[in-house]
């Protein structure tokens, strides 16, 4: 089985490769001259020529492609058109913020969603259950940025509890956390809604299973029964839900970072798109794709930890 994971890990390379190719072609093959966009419609032909030479746009496509790939392999992701800074540096600077956001959001989502889901399943058809189901429905229906705005208004602005702009000094952990609360809640609560729904439905199924009755008959305490036997088996679809949401989460990061003016890959990407800063756009999307693939791989690993009976062969 270790072989399986090693194989999956190695597979990441062609996947990233494929994404790179797709991104490259999407950006270069679709009609439209980026130089005019960058310099404006009334740019002088000389300026256009100059820029094209700089960006090597007149080279044959395959040459641009190989340069592109080469650059990546050397970890030179090009220079930003907006400010000339090396893209690698730009990304490295904001990456920790996005990573923080993703991790803490996931923690929030799981920590809130799973217990609520279990409680809901146990208290089936009570007021608590109905309310939590409605709330979770609202949760999955709200666009992440709207939730962010609401939280921002209520907790940040009116109650003044949390900062609403920026990311805080990376060095200072407390400050980092402080700046992270609202953004992570914005995404985490939505994840919590999904997780709660799935947890509830899985627990409902599992509670009725015979092995639960056996466990109770054995005289084990209710809590042990629920957590050890029930939850363990229900965890797999729950982890699947989280895995699926990861994709949305990275997209959501873009939105949340915009709402809170928080530095991060998302904001970097959006700003770059607005400014038609192609090198940055390409690089960011590729890093995103890599992260998604990596996360999926990690989650598969988690599957096997949860349920040792799963063996990939």
């Amino acid at each position, binding site marked *: 089985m270790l072989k399986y994971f090693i194989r999956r890990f190695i597979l990441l390379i062609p*996947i990233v490769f*494929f*994404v790179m190719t797709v*991104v490259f072609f*999407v*950006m270069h093959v*679709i009609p*439209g001259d980026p130089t005019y966009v960058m310099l404006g419609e009334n740019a002088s032909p000389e300026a256009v020529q100059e820029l094209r030479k700089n960006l090597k746009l007149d080279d044959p496509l395959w040459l641009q492609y190989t340069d592109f790939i080469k650059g990546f392999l050397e970890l030179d992701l090009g220079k930003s058109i907006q400010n000339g800074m090396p893209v690698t540096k730009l990304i490295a600077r904001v990456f920790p913020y996005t990573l923080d956001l993703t991790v803490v959001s996931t923690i929030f989502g799981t920590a809130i969603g799973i217990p609520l889901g279990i409680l809901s399943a146990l208290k089936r058809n009570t007021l608590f259950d109905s309310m939590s189901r409605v709330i979770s*429905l*609202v949760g*999955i*229906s*709200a*666009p*992440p*940025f*709207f939730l962010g*705005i*609401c939280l*921002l*208004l209520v907790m940040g*602005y009116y109650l003044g509890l949390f900062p609403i702009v920026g990311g805080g000094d990376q060095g200072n952990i407390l400050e980092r956390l402080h700046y992270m609360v609202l953004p992570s809640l914005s995404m985490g609560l939505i994840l919590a809604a999904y997780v709660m729904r799935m947890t*509830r*439905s899985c627990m*409902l199924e599992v509670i009725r299973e015979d092995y639960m009755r056996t466990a109770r008959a054995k005289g084990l305490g209710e809590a042990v029964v629920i957590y050890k036997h029930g939850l363990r088996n229900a965890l797999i679809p729950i982890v699947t839900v989280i895995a699926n949401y990861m*994709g*949305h*989460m*990275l*997209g*959501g990061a*873009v*939105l949340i970072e*915009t*709402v809170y003016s928080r530095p991060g890959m998302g904001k970097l*990407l*959006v700003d770059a*798109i*607005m400014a*038609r800063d192609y090198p940055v*756009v390409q690089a960011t*999307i590729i890093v*995103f*794709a890599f992260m*998604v*693939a990596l996360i*999926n791989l990690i989650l598969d690993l988690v599957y096997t930890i949860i349920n040792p009976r799963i063996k990939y062969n």
Partner: protein
Amino acid sequence: MSDIQNPVLAEVLHKEEIKEGYFKLALSNLRKYPLVGISLLVLFSLVFMAVFAPWVAPFDPYQQDFVKRLQPSGGGHLLGTDAFGRDLLSRIIYGARISLAVGLMATGLAALIGTVLGIISAYVGGRFDGIMMGIVDILMAFPMLLFCLLLVATLGSSLQNVVLAIGIAMAPRFVRLARAPTLSIKEMEYMEAARALGLPHYRIVFFHVLPNVIGSLIVVITLQVAAAIIAEASISFLGLGVAPPVATWGNILQEGVGQLRNAPWISIYAGTAIVLAVLSINIVGDALRDIMDPKLKGEKR
């Protein structure tokens, strides 16, 4: 079903029985779960609003009035005005047109492309299918919003491009979804019968496979419309979608962010509209899912 001498009469009576049955079933379901009924009502109202916007909206959504800018509700403006003095309610009503239209069109596009590709891929099988699924897997690993942003960035921001971007981003999901039922249908004997009868492949795919696959897709299509609406809102919110002064829920929200301190209601009302629409669709979609397999689980969860 009694044996009636006249077969034609028997047919007519039989059909009446069936129609009655479905209707009664639908009604009883609605009575049991009022939430679903309410959601359907909300949805119809939204659609009605969107279709009849010019008659429903109290004001012209583009009409600016700098005297009355940034007012909370009052003075004929039920929901207040925005930064340009435009009536918020009217803008939201007109915004429904675009947001709902984009949601429906993008989902329709994705379902069309995805389902046909998925069916063909599963039908043909072999290497073609393997490659297609590999591509689909990789595309699906990519966050949908980012994919949309990438497409919008290259194509440019316009209504058509937004629909196109969301549609293309959602299509892989449908490819996967259409594949599973096709694979099991492929093994059915009526497919062999169709071939034995000399029916051409295109006919088999469109008249025998497709009708049997669509059933399993209805629920997903409904839920995806919700996702498409959120996607459009997100793209417009980032300023990359349909641009003002044309109103969509997303860009109303975006304008509202700039005025968050002075006039938070702009964003809140727009956002609430989105939540209402998406929530209703989700509730109806969930209900549809429950109707579709009533036998799978004993009681409604």
